[in-house]
């Protein structure tokens, strides 16, 4: 994940569940500079919501803490880093497994990481027990001009003007 970035933002907020909506809407607003499609934007919002929820209920276990988000916009992608200084993940491989949850009593589905992985192009997890967890995700966004060019090509093939 190297290369020159075109824009960057940092966000810090209290680990309160009503900030889940704030976080995903803020990142989506930042991502909108890349002209994503509605679907791409929905994917980003969902992945951010999953990662932030994990910080709040698993990292801090609903106690007080700070959730940090750093996001960078590159020429054709967005990188989003979401971290907490909470309790950390003991077994990352297990946490990544679909349907695995350490909090089944809370009606958690265990699909958080699976959703992040399928909605984003890259997901990296770094975690140290007792120190915290950092999720780094990347989504490739095709520039709208390219998509429009493709559309023009399509319509040309269909015999349109």
């Amino acid at each position, binding site marked *: 994940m190297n290369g020159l970035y075109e824009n960057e933002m940092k966000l810090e907020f209290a680990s309160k569940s009503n900030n*889940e909506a704030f976080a995903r809407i803020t990142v989506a607003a930042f991502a909108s500079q890349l002209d994503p499609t509605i679907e791409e934007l*929905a994917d980003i*919002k*969902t992945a951010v919501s999953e990662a932030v*929820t994990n910080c709040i209920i698993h990292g801090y276990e609903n106690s007080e803490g700070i959730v940090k988000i750093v996001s960078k916009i590159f020429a054709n992608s967005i990188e989003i880093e979401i971290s907490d200084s909470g309790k950390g993940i003991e077994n990352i491989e297990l946490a990544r497994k*679909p349907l695995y949850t350490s909090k089944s009593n*809370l009606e958690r*589905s265990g*699909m958080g990481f699976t959703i992040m992985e*399928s909605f984003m192009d890259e997901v990296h997890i770094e975690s140290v027990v007792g120190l915290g967890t950092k999720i780094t995700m990347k989504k490739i966004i095709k520039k709208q001009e390219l998509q429009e060019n493709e559309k023009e090509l399509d319509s040309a093939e269909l015999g349109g003007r």
Partner: protein
Amino acid sequence: MNSVFLEKDKTLLVEITEEIDHHTTDKIRRKIDDDITRYMPRKVIFDFDKVSFMDSAGIGMIIGRYKMVNMLGGITQMKNVKKSIRKIFEMSGVVKIIPIIDSMAS
């Protein structure tokens, strides 16, 4: 969230009107559970038409209600599920146990 109980069909219609995440599910869940225990419906239909966002918290919420209704001998269905939300229900296998009863194109 709005709900209507149709006495004749013993059907509870639940229209969810908020974004569904870990923060909002507590409130939604409590309200639906109240309705289920009050009316003992044969059928519960969740209408997602007004739901603009849902993350994995929605999976646990809907499965939990399904289990409750199922225990009381009723069935659960969903309708007006948008593409972005449908993706989550399909990925998690929810659609296999709680059918989507309409076929909204998008």
